């Protein structure tokens, strides 16, 4: 039931409609509430000392800002060092370019089966669908990703992709899709089944694909963070490894990694460190027995250079993809990830998606927030997400030919414009103010709550009751009371 509703929510026309459908799904809400409560508790336990948190966060935030401040130089340095290490570097301006580059590499090597470690960028470029059109089968090996691939769904969380699935859902999927698999909802048994099935896939795969958590310019090293070991298998067992990363993921030095790693794992899953941290600096060298013969790194732009051009919005690119903002978001917790109908859900998705896809299609996402500020408070690299949400709301509403945001002005409304002009005039000209407040105090209570435009507010709130006399009249008649 839950998944049907979640799926239909994803096809509804806008966020509000999708959210309404998701909100009516009690099962879905229970699953997210439980998962988010657990993740928030675990994260809080990792940062018991506010001073330690503040200083670590300041360090991480500065590292990310320094990396961005020198982004073009660091990308060149990364490329030079990677090439010197034997890693081949490719540049992709768009999702389609990245897909074609990856398909080209795979086709050159005669790859039929690709085993994948978890990568949100590969979701962003919709790689699996593209490869399927070219007769290359991409198999997800992260347990959560494997589950949703069986269900033909998309991740509902960037760290825990199948939060919206219960163990019974997984048991049913496994029974229906894995040969000779009896129904069991025992999590250990399900995990063992995934191990058995995916081992065969690893052994038979012609290539492995991974994302990148940090790329280190100083040494030409790709750093991957995970718990399962599927990332290590994807990047070690097959003869070819293709890594794909958003070009903002580069950091300057190796010593930048420990603080960022600490912030990432503690914020994401409340772990002091993940089971595996994998530093890859080259393909298999002469005399070594394993590791891929070739390693390729694809650097993806897909709108990031445009975001980079705006000094305020550039902060979006500081993100290390921990997911803490969604774990703490009162909206995300209630509607789940699919209601956003975006690769990146939650608060970071609300600022990233409109900038990548444009405000014309994703302009409603910055409004999917109460601006409570929780996301900005927990962000381990101090991205002021609420400020950026407000900025993007403005970009969507204002027609400004100088704006660099894709689809700026897409949600411009003349009526809204006139309302605000009236509001401004009313506060600039005392006569208008007196007339307007007098009229509202006389007829305001008679206005029906269902009045068009007013009903957007009153549909979920009680209509305010107007006083019989405006405040400035009361003050005038009673005199100022300074106490």
């Amino acid at each position: 039931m839950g998944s049907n509703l979640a799926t239909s929510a994803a096809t509804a026309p806008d966020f509000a409609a999708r959210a309404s459908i998701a909100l009516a799904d009690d099962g879905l809400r229970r699953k997210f509430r439980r998962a988010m409560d657990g993740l928030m508790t675990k994260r809080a336990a990792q940062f018991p000392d506010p001073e330690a948190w503040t200083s670590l966060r300041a360090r991480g935030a500065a590292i990310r800002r320094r990396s961005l401040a020198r982004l073009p130089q660091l990308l060149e340095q990364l490329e030079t060092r990677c090439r010197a290490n034997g890693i081949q570097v490719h540049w992709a301006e768009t999702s389609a370019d990245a897909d074609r580059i990856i398909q080209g590499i795979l086709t050159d090597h005669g790859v039929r089966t690709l085993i994948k470690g978890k990568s949100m960028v590969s979701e962003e470029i919709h790689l699996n669908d593209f490869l399927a059109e070219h007769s290359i089968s991409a198999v997800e090996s992260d347990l959560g990703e494997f589950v949703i691939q069986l269900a033909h769904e998309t991740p509902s969380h960037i760290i825990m992709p199948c939060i919206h699935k219960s163990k019974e859902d997984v048991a049913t999927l496994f029974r229906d899709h894995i040969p000779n698999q009896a129904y069991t909802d025992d999590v250990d048994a399900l995990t063992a089944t995934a191990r058995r099935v995916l081992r065969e896939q690893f052994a038979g795969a012609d290539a492995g694909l991974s994302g990148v958590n940090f790329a280190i310019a100083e040494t030409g090293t790709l750093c991957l963070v995970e718990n399962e070991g599927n990332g290590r298998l994807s990047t070690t067992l097959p003869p070819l490894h293709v890594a794909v990363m958003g070009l903002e993921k580069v950091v300057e030095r190796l010593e930048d990694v420990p603080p960022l790693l600490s912030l990432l794992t503690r914020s994401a899953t409340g772990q002091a460190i993940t089971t595996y941290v994998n530093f890859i600096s080259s393909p298999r060298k002469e005399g070594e027995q394993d590791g891929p013969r070739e390693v390729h790194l694809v650097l993806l732009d897909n709108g990031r250079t445009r975001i980079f051009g705006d000094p305020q919005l550039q902060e979006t690119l500081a993100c290390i993809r921990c997911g803490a903002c969604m774990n703490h978001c009162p909206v995300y917790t209630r509607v789940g990830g699919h209601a956003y109908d975006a690769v990146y859900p939650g608060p970071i998705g609300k600022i990233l998606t409109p900038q990548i896809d444009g405000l014309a299609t994703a302009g409603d996402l910055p409004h999917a927030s109460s601006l409570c500020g929780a996301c900005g408070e927990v962000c381990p690299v101090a991205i002021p997400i609420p400020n950026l949400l407000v900025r993007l709301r403005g970009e969507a509403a204002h027609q400004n030919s100088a704006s660099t945001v894709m689809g700026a002005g897409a949600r411009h409304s003349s009526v809204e414009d006139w309302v605000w002009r009236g509001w401004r005039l009313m506060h600039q000209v005392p006569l208008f103010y007196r007339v307007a407040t007098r009229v509202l105090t006389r007829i305001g209570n008679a206005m029906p709550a269902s009045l068009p435009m007013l009903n957007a507010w009153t549909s979920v709130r009680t209509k305010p009751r107007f006083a019989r006399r405006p405040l400035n009249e009361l003050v005038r008649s009673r005199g100022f009371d300074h106490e």
Partner: protein
Amino acid sequence: MSNARTAILDRLRAARPAPLPVLPEWSVTIPPAERLNRFSERLEASHAEVVTSTSGHWPSLLAERLKARGNTQGSANGSSVHYPPGTHHGRCLADAWTDKPELRLVAYDQPVEVLKDTLVHRVDAAVTATRGGIAETGTLILWPSAEEPRLMSLLPPLHVALVEAKEIYGTLTEAMMVQNWSAGLPTNALLISGPSKTADIEQTLAYGVHGPKELLVIVLDP
């Protein structure tokens, strides 16, 4: 795609450069006296087993463990254990186990393409050295090599790792500095902090989803 490279770099350079913020001071220190305890506690909290032994005694300790455990990959007779024959501890193991036919030592001395089936399906355990440990997080540092390939610590259901007590550092930063990582990293450097695990299904922890289900850490305190 060199056009893409030029276009991307040109767009980045066209942006008004942001000021370069100062890096605020940050450090975590763990007093040397607390390191071994902290290291063991953290690893055990991550579902690893930590035992202390000496450089002379550990092969027999390991043999006892493996016999008690039995084979896990369903081979007919005894356990099959990957070891690095060319290293000091590999030779210690081979010398100590000459009278133990039920523990078969298998060298990983051919390319993975040749050994794939054995590696993926038939090995019960692997023994590797480490380049030390990290107390703060309960972490092993591995730099796989030609003698100790990358998959040894990943494919078998049990990974046995040897750590010298004197090589337990306070933090990752400290290990990187003392060992001068930035001067040159190997093909693959690894941090391992427990057995393979997942919580993807209803946030329920399950071990051994892809890598080892068990991690046995032997601290060598000579």
